[in-house]
């Protein structure tokens, strides 16, 4: 049963690559929107893991799928909040460069 289709490792490799691409984007990009996109990338890499593990470990159960759906819903809500924050930042600084937004320092 486990021997058909794409092996689990491939899913995990894709998910890991996606996650670290997200991490790299989060740490290097200066534009807040791009940073938000990087976060979405990380979330989705996790979703792939959920679905893949569910499929390969407990094929007759659905928890992994549901978790992936919840993450999607939360990510949508989070995006709405994050964009609202970014708009406010833009109104205040006329800029969405993350390096310029450093009021909360010592």
């Amino acid at each position: 049963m486990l021997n058909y289709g794409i092996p689990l490792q491939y899913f995990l490799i894709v998910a890991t690559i996606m996650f670290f691409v997200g991490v790299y984007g989060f740490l290097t990009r200066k534009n807040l929107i791009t940073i938000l996109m990087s976060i979405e990338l990380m979330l989705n890499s996790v979703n792939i893991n959920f679905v893949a593990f569910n499929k390969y470990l407990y094929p007759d159960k659905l928890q992994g799928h549901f978790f992936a759906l919840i993450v999607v819903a939360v990510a949508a809500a989070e995006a709405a909040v994050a964009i609202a924050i970014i708009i406010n930042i833009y109104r205040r600084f006329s800029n969405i460069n993350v390096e310029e937004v450093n009021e909360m320092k010592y």
Partner: protein
Amino acid sequence: MIDFSYTILIPLIPFFMFVFLGLAGWKFKPMVSGILGTTGLFVAALLSYYTAFEYFFHTEKILGAYQKLTGFNTVWLQLTDKLHIDLGVLLDPISVMMLVVITTVSFMVHLYSLGYMKGDTGFVRFYSFLSLFSFSMLGLVVATNIFQMYIFWELVGVSSYLLISYYYDKPTAVAAGKKAFIVTRFADLGFLIGILLLSWLTGTFDFKTLTGAHSPVITQGAGVAFMGLSLMTWSLILVFIGGAGKSAMFPLHIWLPDAMEGPTPVSALIHAATMVVAGVYMVARLFPIYFMAPGAGAGLEVVAYVGAFTSLFAAVIACTQFDIKRVLAYSTMSQIGYMMLALGVSGYGGHEGLGFMASMFHLFTHAMFKALLFLGAGAIIHAVHSNVMQDMGGLRKYLPITHITFLIACLTIAGVPPFSAFWSKDEILAAAFHHNKLLFLVEYIVAGLTAFYMFRLYFNVFWGKEKQYHHTPHEAPFTMTIPLMILAVASIFTGFIPFSKLVTSDGVAFASETEMMIAIPSVVIGLLGIGIAWLLYKKESSLPDRIAAGLGGFHKWAYNKFYFDEIYLFVTKKLIFARISRPIAWFDRHIVDGSMNGIAWVTTTTSEKIKGLQSGQLQQYGFVFISGAIILALVFGYLLIF
């Protein structure tokens, strides 16, 4: 049985006067406030006379002895079931006598101050403080227990401080006030420890229980011995230290001469007639303990010798001083020394208690004539605006009333019959003679010295050469002369009060007769003192100066009060401050404060160095967070695998 509960009003009336004048006095004209205060004291004085009359003539005597009656009592502080501190009014011969003394002198001083302090900016303040003092002193003498006495003891100290530094814009007055407060407070520490020891040994504060027939003092025994004396004796000596501080006994006498910086009526009331005899009163109040406590005879010996030494010491200094108030201050110390000595040589009960009776008798007469002397000095100062004898002379023409009353007071203190102090001093000398010949001899010499220095003062002021005055000296207003005359009458006639029938150690009357063997020599030495003063000072001459020069070093030594102020300054400044206080202050500043400052310094410097980490750069935080997560993952992975 007569109800004495109204006696609580005697201290309370001055108290209400103090509160009222202190809070609302400024709303009236100063004179109105003064008259209000005086009226309050007048009422208190009338109540005291009534109380004395009722107590001495209408109360029931048991076995011929006056009883200690509780006029009023309330539990003020209930600490435990057994331990409680009461406030109340205790009436016995000495407290009733003191009520009369205090209210009389206080009323006279109130009346006198209406003239003396007239026009002073702090008139109302002066009167409210006078009332506060009268309240405290009356509360002290009627105390039912030793703790109430202590409370009022401190209150008189405070009011004395307030009144000495009454002229608070004068640095010397402020310094004198502080000195008086600190020295007496220092002595009161001894008093407090004595009270605690005494109440610990006996389990009670109450005077009636302590001095009664079944006193725990006797049953409890002497307690543990410490340095050769029993604890009970030590507690009595400590209590006496408190009394010595208030009564300006050697070596705690240094505050009294400086206290003369206060207004003269204050000196008359506080530093001559009432507060300074508080120590004598306290020893008299505890006298049965002093006498009966096992092995406590040493306490009485201390009282007697301190009293005798102080009286001699102060009399010698008084002969050399030129400030008239200071002469009177030293004379007060000397006379209080007499009273202490009389208590110290006294026995208990009947004729044995002659010294006790004599002490109280002398306290009574002394209050009258010393108040008169001070008020007279006030009238002189009022007339010539100076305290110093050299600025005075020939004043008898200008101040006739003051002259006559002052002369009466001087004759009284010199012990000339039939003036009052003759009788009381004679009893003291008799008591001393039967107890200890050495102490008798000292007191006998002091009697002569007293007559000499008082008449030196008298002749210098009222006779001698007239000086250049700013304006012709004029007699004081009638508010000042009336108290002088009343007190002069009191000085003459109080000697005829049969004290041995009224105020005795155990309340039982006994017959005391004047012993000619002692009375005649004491009158002779008094007259001798007067005669020498007359020769030396009646006409201004250089003879006194030549005698002083002949005495050389001794005169200088006495003139500078035997350098006691300097010794105290040396001990405090050079020894205590420099050797103890400074090192402690250094330790506090550098070690205690230093360690705290060090901790604060380390914290600030460290945070200064590392505050760059809080950069506000989101991605920097993210990098640290993720690196940490990865490192942790690697560590746990490593641990899981191996």
